[in-house]
């Protein structure tokens, strides 16, 4: 620092929101470690007592098996969109594929595009054809898959379009999916077999299979399940959907993530509530607000709010009262 700037600093006026008066009064001993240990003990005791009294949420996990068992028609209607590549996952975009249906951006700012496709997912191959080929001793399934894959793209499209139309009015009874007859080639057998595979639980295993001994990557089943209406309907029934300010709710009568109230509030406000880049916009708002909070000591006006509001005098009122009553003393901030 130059001598000039030092002298400037010495001569500048005192500002109470920026400068600090050196304390010349008395000091009181305080055991911070003791306070920490007491607080830790009290919180630990509270956690144990509340855990015993209230336990924890006990919702049954949603799996491909439970989905296809409870709503096989919705499963079949979703499976055909995975095969013909029109599902939300199939058209999502990065990081799963090159689509652009759900790519979010604010102007040039688009982290998804920048990162690119790094979890490649081909829904027809990964969700339908691949798992079905793992079924042992099923030459009929392999023959249907071979016929489908050997057909030209236009023929595949004609089959899937016809099946998608027919499955919209499908029913399910006696363990069998009933779809009106149509010219959908091997697609009916493929989706029917996939539905049976899902109901047996084998599809769950096929979707999470990995090279590691313990598989913890549930990306594929989660995407598959999320493409259907079953999970969404369950979330709606539990008031957990984003359009219900529900991201802060929890299942049943449990309190949820109440601290997310501000984050989730932005999803209810235009334009975020209807924007295709709502997630990114909400994230940007929260980052901006977080930055403002971090920089409060450096923002003139905002940093003076505590001094103006004088809440601190309410907290330390005994101190200021004693200063005011002390002989020859005046209460100063």
């Amino acid at each position, binding site marked *: 620092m130059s001598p000039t700037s030092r002298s400037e600093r010495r001569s500048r006026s005192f500002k109470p929101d920026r400068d600090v008066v050196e304390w010349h009064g008395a000091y009181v*001993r305080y055991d911070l470690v003791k306070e920490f240990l007491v607080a830790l003990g009290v919180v630990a005791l509270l956690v144990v007592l509340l855990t*015993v009294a*209230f336990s924890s949420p006990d919702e049954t996990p949603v799996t491909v098996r439970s989905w296809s068992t409870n709503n096989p028609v919705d499963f079949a209607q979703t499976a055909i969109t995975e095969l013909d590549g029109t599902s939300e996952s199939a058209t999502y975009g990065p990081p799963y594929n090159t689509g652009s249906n759900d790519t979010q951006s604010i102007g040039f700012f688009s982290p998804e595009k920048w990162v690119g496709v790094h979890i490649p997912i081909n829904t027809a191959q990964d969700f339908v054809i691949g798992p079905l080929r793992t079924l042992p001793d099923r030459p009929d399934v392999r023959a249907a898959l071979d016929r489908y894959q050997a057909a030209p793209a236009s023929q595949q499209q004609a089959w899937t379009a016809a099946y998608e139309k027919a499955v919209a009015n499908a029913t399910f009874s006696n363990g069998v999916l009933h779809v009106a007859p149509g010219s959908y080639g091997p697609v009916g057998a493929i989706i029917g077999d996939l539905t049976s595979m899902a109901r047996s639980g084998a599809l769950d295993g096929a979707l999470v299979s990995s090279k590691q001994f313990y598989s913890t990557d549930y990306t594929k089943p989660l995407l598959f399940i999320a493409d259907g209406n079953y999970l969404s309907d369950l979330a709606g029934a539990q008031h957990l959907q984003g359009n219900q*300010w529900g991201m802060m709710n929890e299942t049943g009568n449990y309190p949820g993530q*109440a601290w997310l*109230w501000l984050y989730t509030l932005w999803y209810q406000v235009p334009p975020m509530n209807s924007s295709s880049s709502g997630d990114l916009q909400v994230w940007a708002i929260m980052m901006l607000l977080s930055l403002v909070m971090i920089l409060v000591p450096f923002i003139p006006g905002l940093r003076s709010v505590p001094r103006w509001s004088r809440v601190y005098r309410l907290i330390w009122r005994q101190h200021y009262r004693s200063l005011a009553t002390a002989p020859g003393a005046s209460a100063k901030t």
Partner: protein
Amino acid sequence: MSVIAAVSQFVLGALFDLNRPGHYVHWGFIQLSVANLVVIGIMIVLFVAAILIPYRREGGDR
């Protein structure tokens, strides 16, 4: 249900079962669970209490 199962369920089960359909307050786009409202209320009460409850007088530990 066997006696052991009944006893273990009584001993290990939660005193208050919250795994039941929730209750909600609905006003426009605001839809809060009553459980969250209770937590928010407790947080406000604790905040006000932290401001208003006086510190111990001098002469104590601090």
